[in-house]
């Protein structure tokens, strides 16, 4: 559940101006905070820490954690968890970076999205959970998220949720114009043309350039534009997978088949509700947002597998999702690990899933009751079956940049030009690449 509060977050970020790291209220608990990432901590020690108790500061914006914390405190009455919402996504990261730089008020546990995790890992801000035996949990999680918390040979967090992608589409619109739901991106392009021709007010999708979405599609196409080996980074947007994406998307842009509406805007939710935006390819955390923000589309929408780059394939990718991490400068590491396991691998998972989160654990994805959940918004469709399948088919080998937060922030400066001028998408990607390379080198990486 990553970005649906983005608009609000940006709005409030714009107002703030000053004083970020003020929050947090560093708990100077005299805990057992022994040591660096390399020490080995056994399950017994973690258990002992939980029994002994203490105070734990958790920075997270994931709403379902509230119930998890309550139940966790019931189970371990001596532990007090201080759940702080220090902002959503980049806003929290800034606060976190500030706290780390100051060495004060650093929380014990922090929520970090997968795309941002490498940046914190390489900055040595996070504890390598290998020392806590996290390797043994590999089988518990689905491959995409697990791959995402592994960075440079370490395990820097436990997956909390995930965003295996699916194609959400407005069935009414497709039926009305007699258009077949696309199973490949080529068919998608065709459908886009047919739909816009049949109804000039309707578009197959909205897109004003979204770095997370673009990289997810490249990921699905098997593209590997980012090769990261420690501080050696290679960026190459001429990779064959990326080109597949560029080819189709260039046509969608040039033929003006994409609604010029930004995601999470008021217009966007209206478009979803009134049928002028016909599809949405995004992470499986989306349904809850449909229900709350676009009630007009209820019953009309369905979920389907993501269109394929090769006919007959079943490749998928992740879009969004986040993990819980233990901060290296946090105090109560054993206790923090206990909380991580409870929230992301133990009883906490069910609590969050019951509240609408999309899990990252294999067990839940195989759970019949969960799979059989009928979504009213999707006309009673058992959409979790599609999401679960997608989660299993996430293409492996993708990695984000260790400075993806920055790279994403200049996506619209560079690639965005292709959306509003005659600049070809490939040139936009080249400009994005150049600017990312420049930044990486300035930051001390060796980027080619």
């Amino acid at each position, binding site marked *: 559940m990553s970005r649906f509060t983005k608009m609000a977050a940006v709005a409030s970020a714009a107002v703030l101006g000053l004083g970020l790291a003020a929050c947090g209220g560093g708990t100077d608990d005299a805990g057992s905070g022994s040591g660096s990432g390399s020490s080995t901590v056994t399950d017994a020690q973690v258990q002992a820490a939980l029994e002994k108790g203490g105070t734990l500061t958790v920075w997270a914006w994931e709403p379902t954690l509230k119930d998890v914390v309550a139940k966790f405190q019931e189970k371990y009455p001596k532990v007090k968890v201080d759940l702080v919402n220090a902002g959503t996504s980049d806003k929290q990261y800034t606060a976190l970076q500030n706290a780390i730089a100051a060495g004060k008020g650093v929380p014990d546990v922090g929520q970090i999205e997968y795309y941002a995790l490498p940046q914190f890992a390489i900055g040595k801000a996070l504890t390598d959970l290998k020392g806590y035996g996290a390797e043994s949990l590999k089988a518990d999680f689905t491959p995409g998220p697990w791959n995402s918390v592994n960075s440079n040979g370490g395990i820097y967090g436990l997956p909390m949720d995930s965003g295996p992608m699916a194609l959400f589409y407005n069935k009414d619109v497709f039926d009305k114009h007699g258009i077949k739901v696309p199973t490949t991106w080529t068919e998608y392009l065709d459908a886009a043309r047919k739909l816009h021709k049949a109804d000039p007010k309707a578009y197959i999708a909205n897109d004003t350039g979204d770095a997370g979405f673009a990289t997810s599609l490249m990921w699905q196409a098997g593209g590997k534009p980012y090769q990261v080996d420690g501080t050696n980074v290679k960026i190459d947007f001429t990779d064959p997978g990326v080109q597949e994406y560029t080819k189709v998307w260039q046509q969608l842009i040039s033929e003006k088949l994409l609604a010029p509406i930004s995601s999470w805007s008021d217009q966007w939710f209206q*478009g979803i509700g009134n049928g002028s935006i016909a599809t949405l390819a995004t992470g499986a955390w989306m349904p809850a947002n449909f229900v709350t923000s676009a009630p007009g589309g209820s019953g009309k929408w369905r979920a389907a597998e993501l269109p394929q780059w090769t006919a007959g394939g079943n490749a998928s990718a992740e879009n969004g999702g986040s993990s819980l991490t233990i901060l290296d400068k946090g105090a109560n590491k054993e206790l923090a690990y206990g909380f991580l396991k409870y929230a992301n691998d133990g009883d906490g998972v069910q609590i969050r899933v019951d509240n609408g989160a999309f899990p990252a654990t294999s067990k839940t994805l195989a759970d019949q009751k969960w799979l059989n959940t009928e979504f009213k918004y999707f006309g009673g469709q058992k959409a979790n079956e599609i999401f679960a399948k997608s989660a299993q088919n996430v293409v492996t080998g993708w990695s984000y940049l260790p400075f993806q*937060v920055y790279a994403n922030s200049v996506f*619209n400066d560079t690639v965005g030009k292709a959306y509003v001028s005659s600049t070809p998408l490939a040139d936009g990607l080249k400009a994005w690449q150049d600017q990312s390379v420049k930044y990486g080198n300035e930051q001390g990486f060796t980027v080619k």
Partner: protein
Amino acid sequence: MAVPQLAAPPAASRMGVRRRRPSFKGWQFVGPFMFVFALVFLAPIGYAIYLSLFRNRLIGGNQFVGLDNYQQALTDPQFWSSVGRVGLFLLVQVPIMLFLALLVALALDSGRLYGKSFFRVSIFLPYAVPTVVAALMWGFIYGSQFGLVGNINDALGVSLPDPLKPSLILASIGNITTWEFVGYNMLIFYSALQVVPKSLYESAAIDGAGQWRIIRSIKIPAIRGALVIATIFSIIGSFQLFNEPAILRNLAPNAITSYFTPNFYAYSLTFAGQQFNYSAAVAVVMAVITIIVAYVVQLRGTKELG
């Protein structure tokens, strides 16, 4: 930022000079003020300058780099494009806004307007709307798909240009700020006009001057000080343009770059790129530019007065 007017601390009182030891009485009086002044005004500026002399990198840590960040800023095309953009904004939007404000103030002051207080309040009202809210609201209006612009297109069968496209976005932002600040500037002008003695108008009328002549020869010269002040405020406001682009960027991410205005550039550098040292340098350079421009305008404005 205007240059702070630092009052010289009062010298030791004449009566207490019996002993040669300097008296600190005066400092005791201004001490609390000086402390707060140093803490809230000087310290942040000093800290920004201090920060700007370092470079903290993701790999390699923090390092003293002297004036490197300034050198980089002075040759940074993105920074200068943002300065150019607010410069253009300043040259176009500020005159329009001040002219409108003056017009409204003169109309209100003429006493010939029916429902004067209603107009005064309703023109001032937008200023009471927080800029963030105003920007969000205008964002809804500007929507060419389902916003007001879109609705007008549908209802009248016309196709208005998209106010959020790159070539129009600056004008659209100018429209928002004009809407917001006309009332504020109007109030400055109006209150300045209120203190002009009415007898001047009467004697001018007796001398046969028409309303235009009165405006040109009495009213405008009389409020020149207010005009200069309003201009300086507007210059500073233009250079600090931030909220409107920051909010509208969610709707027009490709038209508003991360270096759209100097302030927004500094913000992006810090928040997205963790380049707070470079950001501090950009902020300092921008502050210097603003002070210079505001000072030049102040000098010119007051010179013509004399």
